[in-house]
């Protein structure tokens, strides 16, 4: 248990040493703390079918987890934040910027990267091209080269595979490509939708390791997971969604007092 | 589904009376309006039947058959060849049309139904064109000269026809065939579990297979059935129109019409092809009445097709059932507008 708290303070350490990490990871965009991604009374859905009934949410430093039963609207909510699903009502802001009506391709430019469920790599593009697509919104060639070097430092396994088509990689390596690609955007905030789903346990470990590394570098991570046990080891703050509403939010410690919630929604 | 009540449910009075009235109208049609309208009526009935035959494979089973018209032509030529080259009565030609279409459809089905989507569409289209080209070269089909069928036969299945072989007679034949096609579609695809199997394989072939559905066989059955229906109409059409030519009854436009009719009416629905068939047939046939000697109906139909696909993808039936309301169109327009963000 103390380990986990340690992980959380690890994120703080990273924030302290922000200057160093920030400079070589992403010199151009980041100056101070990562802006808070927050949602206020968000309603959204598909066609006539409303899924989210007023969600209020705020990202924290480190990892903010979203749990909830299937179909509770977790992915939908994530997609309102990255712009894929239009917001019916309510607002979404990132620091001072209003994202509510922005399109996904514009939201990325503010520093919010998404890792869609399954990784969403471009299978017929090479690994290097996948990374380059990640930097699509970046015009500065030097910055791109720097970030690529950074990604390869974090994931040395990708070094020899740069010219290979992404589909030829193993599941775990593909996950590295998608995370690396997300890093290439120069984002400070990462939206991850079930990064461990369908992965073998060893790869699940790898995926969570990667998340830790992102946090170490000062990024905020919003994480949807069904692998609640593993995710809780990383979590700094937890939201529980059910039927399109927030049922609980608070630090993981508080969760232990909510036996009923745990039982009902998390099966713990 | 949106709130507005389906138009079909808003008919005043008992629905059965409406159907009864419609039945009486259909039966009395040639006597009420004369021979020209009998011809228009029989044309409409034929096209409704053909649209439904496409709907079986294209709508219910989800296989975009872009060569379906070939079976209409094959039916026509089977009947024509039997009557012209061998001097048999129509009824033999009719039987031949069914047999030839069924056998050919089966042979085609075996390799072709392994393809899906655009590949199936293009393969069937290429096959239909090959058949047309072959018919233009072969001697038995009359080659480039086509076939002139014997005129005014005045017996049907050996029995003298009292009112001669006139449009009135053909009107009732088409009415009968069209009704039979509707009935078969209703029973097989809407009532029987066979229909569930067909829809299942349309949605997910592997899943269907894993649930005991012999998808290869079901697909084949639907394909052969739909092709035979088209051929049946083709044979009667040949008998009626007397002169058949590959460029007419094997033309790709025959398929195109069926597809458009089924789509505009509402794919994979029983009544969609009725509305789509009526609309397109009448638009085309009566365009000269409204537009004079102009080809203006072509861009008009083109525009109509585009608008339908854009705003009413479930077809006329979708509008009648109230699935597509004003709100949907507005939402659609808004989404479309967003896609014009190009700079």
């Amino acid at each position, binding site marked *: 248990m103390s380990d986990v708290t340690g992980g959380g303070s690890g994120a703080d350490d990273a924030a302290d040493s922000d200057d160093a990490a920030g400079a070589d990871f992403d010199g151009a965009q980041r100056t101070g703390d990562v802006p808070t991604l927050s949602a206020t009374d968000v309603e959204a859905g598909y066609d006539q079918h409303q899924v989210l009934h007023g969600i209020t949410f705020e990202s924290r430093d480190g990892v903010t987890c979203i749990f909830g039963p299937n179909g509770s609207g977790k992915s939908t909510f994530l997609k309102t934040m990255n712009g894929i699903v239009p917001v019916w009502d309510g607002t979404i802001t990132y620091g001072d910027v209003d994202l509510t009506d922005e399109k996904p391709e514009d939201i990325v430019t503010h520093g919010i990267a998404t890792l869609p469920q399954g990784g969403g790599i471009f299978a017929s593009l090479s690994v290097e091209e996948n990374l380059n697509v990640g930097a699509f919104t970046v015009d500065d060639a030097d910055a791109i080269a720097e970030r690529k070097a950074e990604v390869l430092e974090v994931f040395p396994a990708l070094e020899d595979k740069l010219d290979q088509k992404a589909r030829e990689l193993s599941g775990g390596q593909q996950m590295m490509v998608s995370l690396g690609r997300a890093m290439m955007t120069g984002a400070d905030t990462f939206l991850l939708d079930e990064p461990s789903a369908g992965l073998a346990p060893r790869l699940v470990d790898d995926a969570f390791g990667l998340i830790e590394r992102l946090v170490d570098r000062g990024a905020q991570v919003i994480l949807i997971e069904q692998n609640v046990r593993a995710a809780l080891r990383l979590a700094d703050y937890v939201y529980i969604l059910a039927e399109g509403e927030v049922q609980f939010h608070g630090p993981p410690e508080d969760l232990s007092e909510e036996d009923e919630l745990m039982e009902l929604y998390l099966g713990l | 589904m949106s709130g507005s009540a389906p138009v079909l449910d808003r008919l005043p009075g008992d629905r059965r009376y409406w159907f009864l009235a419609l039945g009486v109208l259909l039966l009395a049609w040639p006597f009420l309006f004369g021979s020209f309208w009998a011809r228009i009526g029989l044309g409409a009935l034929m096209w409704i039947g053909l649209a439904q035959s496409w709907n079986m494979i294209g709508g219910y089973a989800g296989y975009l058959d872009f060569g379906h018209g070939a079976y209409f032509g094959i039916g026509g030529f089977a009947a024509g060849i039997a009557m012209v080259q061998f001097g048999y009565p129509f009824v033999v030609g009719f039987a031949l049309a069914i047999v030839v279409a069924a056998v050919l459809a089966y042979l085609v089905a075996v390799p072709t139904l392994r393809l899906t989507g655009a590949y199936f569409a293009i393969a069937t289209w290429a096959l239909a064109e090959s058949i047309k080209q072959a018919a233009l070269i072969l001697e038995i089909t009359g080659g480039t000269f086509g076939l002139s069928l014997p005129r005014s036969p005045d017996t049907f299945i050996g029995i003298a026809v009292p009112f001669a072989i006139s449009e009135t007679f053909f009107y009732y034949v088409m009415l009968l065939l069209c009704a039979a096609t509707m009935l078969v579609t209703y029973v097989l695809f809407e009532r029987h579990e066979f229909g569930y199997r067909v829809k299942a394989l349309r949605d997910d072939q*592997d899943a269907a297979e894993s649930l005991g559905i012999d998808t290869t066989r079901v697909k084949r059955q639907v394909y052969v059935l739909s092709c035979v229906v088209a051929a049946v109409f083709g044979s009667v059409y040949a008998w009626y129109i007397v002169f058949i030519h590959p460029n007419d009854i094997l033309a790709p436009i025959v398929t195109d019409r069926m597809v458009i009719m089924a789509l505009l009416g509402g794919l994979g629905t029983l009544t969609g092809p009725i509305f789509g068939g009526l609309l397109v047939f009448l638009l085309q046939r009566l365009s000269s009445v409204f537009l004079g000697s102009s080809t203006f109906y072509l861009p008009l139909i083109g525009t109509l097709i585009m608008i339908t696909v854009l705003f009413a993808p479930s077809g006329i039936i979708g509008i009648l059932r109230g699935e597509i309301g004003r709100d949907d169109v507005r939402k659609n327009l808004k989404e479309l507008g967003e896609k014009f963000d190009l700079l």
Partner: protein
Amino acid sequence: MSDGDTILKTTDLTKRFGALTANDEISLAVERGEIRGIIGPNGSGKTTFFNTVTGFYEPDGGSVHFNGEEVTGWEPHRLARRGLGRTFQIVSPFKNMTVRQNMLAVQTDDGRSREEKRERVGEILEFLEIDHIADNEARGMSGGQQKLLELGRVLMLDPELVMLDEPAAGVNPALEERIMDHIHELNDEGTTFVVIEHDMHVMKTLADTVSVFDSGRHIAQGDFEEVSQNEDVRKAYLGGTTAEDDEVPV
């Protein structure tokens, strides 16, 4: 060939995709009444094995026996009607049909009447606790409900053996428990299961025996404890996680 207790037996089953051997001489026997787990790294050939056994892939070598009968190369629907049911890794409901129609589409040779079939649909939906949405279209169902529907459809076959490909993936823990309960219940009634799953908690709870796949080969077999202590397995598959670490860190 096989004794009465073996319901499924593969011998040197091989499947290649071009240069890749996805299943390399896999020999495996499943006893009637057991729940067999299959684990292995991503891409180790688990799903391919399912597909080859159930007739979706033509094997490049080896044989499959089901209920003592050689069924190698049989078409899937034929196997299904013999009582070999399966689900898919990616859920595949018939989206344009209602839940009930999804169930009724299932085809069997058992000569059940229409009424009997409908009755059975009701029973199964009730058992899975999704009878309240029987007449909803499948497209509007949540991912979890779709998983239940898949299980329900398979049950319409009255299968003797059910092969489940990652039934708990992406499923919320609460629902996961429910699915496991259903499997146990059906197993108690005599249905044999083969389950692919990456969730070790599920594996541990369900499986009587676990088979481990790696690079297309069947490298180990044993009960969960045995297998999870195996060095090769730990290295290839489990990694650093102590799979038995069920403790919730809060």
